[in-house]
């Protein structure tokens, strides 16, 4: 039942917005990334650095101003069911039940009704929500909603899963629990994951590699591999060392991003 996963390559992607005053705003400087099939890449960076912009381009919601992104050999030109996404605000369909949400992508892939239900239930079991299949979305807590959203994203077997600060709105304990659940699903299915966050511990808990982005206009400042075996204990010395390193990088960028903002205010 494990579908294929594919490599994702980002080649010289740039993005320039037109601001309200008409002046061009550079959101992304040329970004280059080679993400292996089945790799878990986490992007961290100060807020407003363009990590979400990059993720939206990878999802196909926006065209880059320059460069291109490829999944395997295919150039990304628009949204596709082969690239699933998990959003910070869950984005569940409130008119469908829990299992209806998980079946949505399968239905679009024309999976027959009975099989669709079986697959959806299997993914709901993976996130521990099999007993909530017929519930309405608005009956669920935030953590449960995000578990449904994760099941919904994985169920149609996309090669790539994009996650935009998926646990950003959740409390610390729920967050830890969901990180564990996500890792288990990822290890089982080996999808290529691109995960955006601004939590340093979260990045170290999840990532094969971490890409640190600079302040706006964003580019990749540093790539680090996390050579710790799962499950990673947040209290271990090596975890702490990685945290320290990452914070040092980010602090520098944060200082720069405040300088950029101050510059904007003066201008």
């Amino acid at each position, binding site marked *: 039942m494990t579908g294929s996963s594919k490599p994702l390559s980002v080649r010289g992607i740039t993005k320039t917005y037109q601001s309200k005053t008409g002046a061009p705003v550079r959101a992304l400087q040329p970004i280059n990334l080679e993400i292996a099939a089945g790799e878990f890449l986490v992007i961290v960076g100060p807020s407003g650095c363009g990590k979400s912009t990059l993720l939206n381009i990878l999802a196909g919601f926006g065209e880059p101003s320059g460069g291109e992104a490829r999944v395997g050999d295919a150039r990304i030109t628009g949204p596709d069911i082969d690239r*699933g996404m998990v959003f910070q605000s869950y984005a569940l369909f409130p008119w469908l039940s829990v299992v209806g949400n998980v079946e*949505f992508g399968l239905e679009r892939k024309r999976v027959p009704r009975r099989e669709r239900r079986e697959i959806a239930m299997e993914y709901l079991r993976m996130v521990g929500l099999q007993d909530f299949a017929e519930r309405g979305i608005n009956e669920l807590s935030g953590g449960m909603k995000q578990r449904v959203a994760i099941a919904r994203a994985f169920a149609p077997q996309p090669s790539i899963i994009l996650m935009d600060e998926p646990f950003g709105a959740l409390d610390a304990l729920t967050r830890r629990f969901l990180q564990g659940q996500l890792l288990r699903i990822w290890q089982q299915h080996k999808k290529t994951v691109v995960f955006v966050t601004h939590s340093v511990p979260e990045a170290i808990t999840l990532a094969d590699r971490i890409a640190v982005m600079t302040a706006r206009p964003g580019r990749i400042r540093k790539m680090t591999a996390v050579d710790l075996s799962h499950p990673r204990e947040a209290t271990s010395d090596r975890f702490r060392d990685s945290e320290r390193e990452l914070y040092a990088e980010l602090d520098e960028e944060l200082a720069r991003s405040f300088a950029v903002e101050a510059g904007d205010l003066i201008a």
Partner: protein
Amino acid sequence: MIVIVWQLVIALFRPHVSLLPPPVLAASEFWTLFASGELFVHTGISLARVFSAWMITGAIAIPLGLAMGWSHRFEQIVDPFVEIFRPISPLAWIPLAILWFGIGEAGKVFVVCVATFFPTLLSTIAGVKRIDPVLVHAGQVLGCTDQPSLLRKVIFPAALPSIVVGLRISFGTGWAAIIAAELVAARSGLGYLIANGMEILRADKVLVGMAMIGILGVCFDAFFRFLNRRFAWGEA
């Protein structure tokens, strides 16, 4: 309460029975029309007109509203026409309706169509515009990559709570408009019952017609409020 005031007015002003009959007399006329089935015939005819017009409107205004809410360019093209016709009361269309369709069914259905059109259209547009863009994105990455499937599987259900509100409001405006249309030109319907009561100086008949309009209005509003709650996912 109403009955007490009514009785009081009669006791104080002593109006002629053809202008304001006592409640007992109105009630007995209600019973007469009820028992003879005449009341049902008129009510049924009025309802049938409103329902058919309301469905025609829904079939036009909902797709149009979806398109206008979804495509900014399409909205810019169509909106000026909508804005010109919107302030014109549906009742102002009655003379034209009579000229074009005579006093047959088509004219009255037409007037109700006009009356129900704008509430339905505007609620549909508002419903589409209020959709969280992230839901659209979610639909796209789950396989709704073309406009028709996106409209059918995401935009329409997401806007449905607002559309149901529009249908409820428009049923109310349609119900008001059909009475007006029947007052002017009809040989049947609740509006006709009222107009006829006036012509033959039978205020009791007029009152029975009015009571029926009020009762049904309340019933339908309650029904739609129930539907609203059923489709209230937009609120939470």
